[in-house]
């Protein structure tokens, strides 16, 4: 098949993707979703005045006729104060404007429609939206949505954004393992082959390579098509041990033990039978069409000492690999973090309860374990008190939606973050929450259905994600500049830069 990932990889287009330049990558859907609807009545004479006036490029005249308004660029009624507001200026009174009713059906408290759309803009353009979409805050009424920065006046003077250092060190131990630095304080979370498509996985890997960061295999095996990017891929070892082999351990610079997942802490993974296609079954050495469980927990690990045995086992196979321990956020997450450190972890990765998933019981998503906003300061302070904070990388995930969430996480005490849902949204996920059912994602992102997989090309995925990282990096630089900082490392644990909204 000409579109198979292997074939795609040999194409020039993929080679050319290996940079951080932001080329525009528009939506792959015919009709874009917009916040506003601009109506042009039959009174329009195609005089072209609106096209001359609008500085956002909503109206385009082509020859003697007007094209359909490019509504996704419109800033809505906020434009009223501009002297080029097309609705008022149209000589024929042919234009009208309103909120798109479709927009109101989208999104939720954590990911409002504004945030979904602004993430699409970032993935398309490589920068944050400038058309008034709210991308900093959700409507959840707590956590990140109630934290703001207290920017000192004039602090950023003389700081060159270009020279800003966003890199973080992942091995902070004085040992013989790899020295690993990533260029941005963000890497991709575990999403298995089976829960997402191979195209999605390769796209993530290319973006990770472009930004000298990482993506993670999740627990579904290590597709051969990812091997060229092995330098930027974390091999996950989870309870089902799917795809855990000597070679997949040895080729990874970082090995991640997944003890729990924030969205379903204390519960195992479950890949429904429909999603176990022949390819998935082969990768996981299982039977096509039969549901696969990852048990909870590791039945060989009931103490930190048991965990240490796990680590020793990995070290025997791959002595230079970094060890990351991904845990969820129970009340004693601080104890777990310290224990992990003493059991030789390089990275303590805490995954909060509001994180993403391909499938989880609703009761678990909402209720079990604490949101990551609470867990970060708890773990950070505990590691500080223990005197080991500077010897371990603390990575947070579970509901990090935008660059401001990243900055707030770091200010609360994390070194960096892991993202998942934001990457899915960059590929035009609309969070319809049907990842788990039937053939999987109808939009082709989280599916292994051969036909639906073709909806997302590797090139599209790689470039959209690369753009997303570019946008986040730019915005992080702006935030740091306003704080008067030259490196993201200066921000770690600086809760004095934050304020709570009541």
């Amino acid at each position, binding site marked *: 098949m000409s579109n198979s990932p292997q074939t795609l990889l040999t194409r020039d287009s993929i080679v050319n993707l290996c940079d951080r330049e932001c080329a525009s990558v528009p939506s792959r859907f*015919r*009709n874009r979703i917009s916040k506003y609807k601009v109506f042009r009545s039959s009174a329009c004479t195609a005089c072209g005045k609106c096209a001359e006036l609008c500085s956002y490029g909503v109206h385009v005249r082509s020859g003697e006729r007007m094209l359909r308004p490019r509504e996704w660029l419109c800033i809505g009624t906020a434009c009223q104060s501009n002297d080029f507001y097309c609705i008022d200026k149209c000589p024929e009174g042919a234009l009208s404007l309103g909120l798109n*009713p*479709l927009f109101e*059906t989208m999104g*939720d*408290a954590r*990911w409002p429609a504004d945030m979904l759309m602004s993430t699409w803009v970032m993935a398309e353009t490589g920068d944050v939206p400038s058309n008034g979409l709210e991308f900093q805050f959700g*409507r*959840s*009424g*707590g956590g990140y*949505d109630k934290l703001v920065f*207290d920017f000192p006046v004039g602090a950023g003077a003389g700081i060159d954004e270009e020279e800003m250092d966003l890199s973080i060190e992942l091995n902070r131990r004085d040992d013989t393992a790899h020295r690993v630095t990533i260029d941005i304080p963000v890497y991709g979370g575990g999403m298995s082959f089976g829960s997402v498509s191979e195209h999605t996985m390769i796209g993530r890997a290319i973006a990770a390579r472009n930004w000298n960061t990482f993506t993670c295999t999740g627990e579904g095996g290590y597709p051969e098509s990812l091997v060229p990017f092995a330098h930027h891929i974390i091999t996950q070892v989870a309870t089902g041990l799917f795809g855990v082999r000597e070679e997949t351990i040895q080729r990874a610079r970082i090995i991640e033990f997944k003890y*729990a997942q924030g*969205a379903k*802490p*204390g519960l*195992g993974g479950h890949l429904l039978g429909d999603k176990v296609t022949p390819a998935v079954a082969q990768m996981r050495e299982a039977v096509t069409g039969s549901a696969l469980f990852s048990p*909870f*927990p590791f039945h060989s*690990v*009931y*103490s930190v000492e048991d965990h240490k045995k796990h680590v020793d086992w990995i070290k025997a196979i791959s002595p230079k690999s970094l060890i990351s321990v991904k*845990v969820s956020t129970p009340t*004693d*997450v601080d104890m*777990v973090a310290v224990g992990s450190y003493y059991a030789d972890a390089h990275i303590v990765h805490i995954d909060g309860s509001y994180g*993403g*998933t*391909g*499938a*989880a*019981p*609703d009761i678990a*998503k909402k*209720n*079990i*374990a*604490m949101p990551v906003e*609470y867990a*970060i*300061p708890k773990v950070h302070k505990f590691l500080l008190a223990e005197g080991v904070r500077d010897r371990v990388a603390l990575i947070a995930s*579970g*509901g990090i939606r935008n660059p401001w969430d990243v900055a707030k996480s770091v200010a609360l005490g994390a070194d960096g973050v892991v993202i998942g849902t934001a990457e899915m949204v960059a590929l035009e996920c*609309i969070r*319809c*929450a*049907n*990842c788990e*059912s039937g053939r999987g994602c*109808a*939009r082709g992102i*989280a599916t292994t259905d051969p036909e*639906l997989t073709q909806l997302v090309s590797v090139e599209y995925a790689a470039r959209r994600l690369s753009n997303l990282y570019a946008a986040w990096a730019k915005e992080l630089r702006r935030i740091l500049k306003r704080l008067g900082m030259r490196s993201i490392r200066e921000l770690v644990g600086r809760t004095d830069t*934050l*304020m*709570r*909204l*009541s």
Partner: protein
Amino acid sequence: MPKKYHIKAQLMPPRFPPVPKYAMVEREGCLGCLECAKRECVYDVYKNRRFSPEHMVDSIDYLCKNCLRCIQGCKNQLITKMKNPDFEALGDEHWKPDQIASLWEQATTGKIPVSGAGYRGPFSGPGFDSMWTDMSEIVRPTRDGIHGREYIRTSADIGRKPAQLEFDSMGDLRSEPPPLVEIPVPFIFDKLPFGVLNGNVRAGFVRAAEIVGTLIVIPEEDLDWKLMARSENIIPLLRSGGTETGRLKELVTRSRMVELEDSPDVIERIAALKKLNPATVMVVRMATNKSVSGRVEELTRGGAEAVHLVADWQGNEPHEADPRFIKDVLREVHLNLINKALRDEVAIIASGGIAMAEHVAKSIISGADLVGMDLVLEVALECRVCKRCIRGLSCPVTIEAVDPEWAALRIRNLVCSWHSQLIEVLGAMGLREVRRLRGEVGRAMFYEDLEREAFGDVKLAPNAAYAR
């Protein structure tokens, strides 16, 4: 090991199409092009489209899974969707539309609600939304109950548990241990705060209680001898100030438990009724209020073997000006009983506002032994919590006309789903007994505590400048 408690669910379709959350809107102007976006539908909702003239509902509105492919694919941009105001009008601030829709689905399938993508709701909120349950990790073992590899017990005991047994010199028990009613799930069915309740519905409720193995509270005046044939599953609620008639004697003798409304003479009444039948567990029913804690202590000392605390349908104290939520009332009552060394002398049943499976676990963590399901039983029968019945208006889903067997099986499905969800939560916490969850606030996290610990050192923003 005891025989595993298991509820077998079975699909029990609703009588009415569910109220759809969104409505599909199509404009005129279809050119009948060959690449119709509707044919591409991954879920075949256009292929299976039906219009019900009886209910005036288009199946596409509730079958559609919101992938927006057709909306974004139609060449002429003819398809869109919008919010359905009928959906948003469901329930109230405690019984939220999404919860009601989820309960309907659980009553239909008996399955745990599972979905993709992360949590979608508010960060925290009033009532039960201001607490999280804990889980075990690495240093504490979890339990794998849901896949059946370990047995997690969900049974609850109602009654007094003596601190010690007394033996005579011959080694025989000196006194009879007090009666204890054990039910396999930590919920009973309670009196409805409002809702349609006729013979059909009541018969459905009683049948459901029988299938599930629990009990249902029924006021004395509503009990006929036909119902009392199921006395195994019925808790008669006795009128206060009733006289000792033959009928009352019969009720008390045949019932495993009776409930008495709280009244000044309730302690004397308990003593009188105990004489009629010492094997019946005496439960005192009272509304939650500011002085409830002291009263529960008094009742316990006075011989009540269980206290049934009843909040209003939203979980609040019914007659207080500044009402507390049932979770907070339970914590106070539980702690007071602990401090007075009385906690095992009495079982606490909590009712009112229990709308989701998580509320069962959270009530028990707050200090209840078990909870009462009330309005949620009606929701299983497709109730929309519209409260028209309170105003004497007709029920939009004609609950009065339900087939009792259908009603019973819908409720059984809901109980099955709640039971499974309770096991999920217990498994994650590493508990093998719901009895061990009672008052286990160490296995819960509260909003106020977490806010203080995490953000206590973060300064408060000046309000004016940062009003959001």
